[in-house]
């Protein structure tokens, strides 16, 4: 862990406005808190831009993270910031390579909290095999940001012949999920004040690039990949149905949901289908490969509960329908409104 900054002045356990000013204090925080943790040859020169090379089709994505609270069971904003961008790259079949990392820090954030986030970023980056090659730090007045906001952008390479897009689903394809839904949203909610329940549930926040690489080995007929973050599984399936101009039919019985998540959702009047995930992906694959893909997924730690949950159909393009446990059917709509703000 990098040392706490000491320059002989008082209040050195908190981030100050001066830390973001570009001056001496700023250099210290960058070197001591960030670079020493994230050390790599591309980052270390600390030039205005990182110099990278890559050949082939590049995937490029960015996301900002404003989750509240910044520490939650099973993760924190740092882990989220890496996983979110790594996963977005993975969802187009790209191997994630390099990330940028920008902090907007509220004056007064404890340095030890910042360092805890950075340690988490380091660990997650190492697990994903990505390098953080450039970054930025700004500090804003108390009240102008809620403790810490992070932005990451990422670059990856898509192997030749891989064509994965939300437009590719075809009638007859199988729809697969890699595990239980709703874990992240409920874990974050469980930390928020006033919502009054305690659960051992942890966020599922995890990098899925390894899992995706294995899935691509199991099938060369992977049509779509998407991670159901905000809006949950329901919103993602609706997006895919709309983009591919198909309908999707899922079966309630087959969708993996943890008992604690189902119970919490009951209590709060939420539908697990609408709750955010941060370590899940939906895959649409040609039916003939579905079993093989699921079998392969189950061997990966992020795919143990993988299951085929439905199929793609032709009629009623854009619609998602679910066969309930009772054998009746109902529409599965996109999430409307914001029952769970600041979830990622």
């Amino acid at each position: 862990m990098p040392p706490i900054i000491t320059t002989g002045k008082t209040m050195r356990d908190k981030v100050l406005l001066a830390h973001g000013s570009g001056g001496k204090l700023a250099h210290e925080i960058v070197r001591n808190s960030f670079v020493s943790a994230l050390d790599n040859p591309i980052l270390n020169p600390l030039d205005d831009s990182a110099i990278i090379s890559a050949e082939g089709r590049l995937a490029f994505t960015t996301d900002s993270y404003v989750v509240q609270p910044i520490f939650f069971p099973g993760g924190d904003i740092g882990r989220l910031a890496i996983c979110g961008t790594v996963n977005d790259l993975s969802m187009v079949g790209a191997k994630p390579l390099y990330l940028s990392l920008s902090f907007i820090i509220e004056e007064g954030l404890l340095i030890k909290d910042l360092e805890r986030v950075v340690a988490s970023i380091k660990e997650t980056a190492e697990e994903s095999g990505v390098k953080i090659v450039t970054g930025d730090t700004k500090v804003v007045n108390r009240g102008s940001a809620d403790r810490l906001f992070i932005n990451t952008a990422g670059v990856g390479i898509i192997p030749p012949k891989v064509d994965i897009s939300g437009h590719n689903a075809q009638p007859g394809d199988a729809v697969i999920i890699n595990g239980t839904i709703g874990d992240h949203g409920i874990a974050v909610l469980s930390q928020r004040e006033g919502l009054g329940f305690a659960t051992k549930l942890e966020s599922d926040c995890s990098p899925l690039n390894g899992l995706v690489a294995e899935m691509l080995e199991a099938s060369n007929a992977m049509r779509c990949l998407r991670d159901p973050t905000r809006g949950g599984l329901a919103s993602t399936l609706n997006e895919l149905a709309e983009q591919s101009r198909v309908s999707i039919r899922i079966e309630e019985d087959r969708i993996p949901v943890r008992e604690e998540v189902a119970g919490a959702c009951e209590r709060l009047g939420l539908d697990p289908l609408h709750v955010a995930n941060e370590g899940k992906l939906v895959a649409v694959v040609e039916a003939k490969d579905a079993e093989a893909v699921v079998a392969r997924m189950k061997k990966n730690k992020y795919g143990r509960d993988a299951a085929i949950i439905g199929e793609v159909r032709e009629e009623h393009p854009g619609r998602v329908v679910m066969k309930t446990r009772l054998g009746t059917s109902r529409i599965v709509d996109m999430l409307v409104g914001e029952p769970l703000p600041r979830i990622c």
Partner: protein
Amino acid sequence: MATVDDFRRSELVAGIVSSINRHATREARFMEFCGGHTVAILKNGIRQLLPPTIILTSGPGCPVCVTDNADLDKAIALAKLPDLILVSFGDMLRVPGSCSSLQEVRAAGNDVRIVYSPLDALELARTNSQKSVVFLAVGFETTAPGVAASVLQAKQEGLKNYYILSLHKLCPPITKVLLDSGEINLQGLICPGHVSAIIGSEPWQFIAGDYGIPCVVSGFEPLDILQCVDMLTQQVAREEAKVEIAYKRGVTPQGNQTAIKIMEQVFQPAPANWRGVGEVADSGLALRPEFKDFDAELNFDFDPGPTKTQKGCICGDILRGVKTPQECKLFRKVCTPVSPVGPCMVSSEGSCAAYYHYGEDNER
């Protein structure tokens, strides 16, 4: 111990459906009073299991939906007052009033908070002694006793900054109004399960006795609703009209006497404004004079402004069971959950929201 899941078991569905089919020899229209039942029926696709002779119609049992614009405007006006925290159940935030909503008022910087329980509002009063905390008390007899208890607790603790804006309403009186209107032709009433857990099944007696309409108190799981329909269907087949309880694990004929006493100790019947119906005598609850110190209407100076209604919105007709959401010109085209015109599209128990989310071909 029987769990909630037991009342959802698909292998038990066929048995009840078979019984319904055997007994549903006549056409019958049943009204599910409660918005929670409307949602459960659509979410589980219950209509797909019923024979075509049985029609289900939604009723006025959504306390958010039946809140009149004029009443919501009062809450909005209160929220704008300085040093005041307006506390509400989440559903009320996005309901459009005459010109604004609590959500908009909050976005403009006023202190509006969402709570799950009046107990949370009490806690806010304790921890914000420099401010007034006004709880927007919306709900039927399921909710009113808890709110009453919170007032008693506030009085016990000597809290001086806790207030209630009571928009509570009562179910049996509005049911009588709907039946007297002659607008709907019902052969049965699916009585609200949790309202009845409080008031018991006795208060529904007049519907069977004076109007000859069978009543069955139902729970909210799919098997509960099917059982209720089965019992109503059998009464219709036998040309009977009585009040029965299907939801026996939660409801007794006398209800929860403690809850009723607390509710009556704090509240008294008062006229109330019902969206789509207008004022109905003795259909709402107002704080009794001895609790006037907790009454927001008596303790604050606020002006709700002129009342306006949204053109084209037929929430009122839908709540009376006269029209379905699909018959509304605005449904889906103009009025959607993202941009709602009326409360039926906003509330988690609103008919329009339920039809929008779970599908119209789910409907008969």
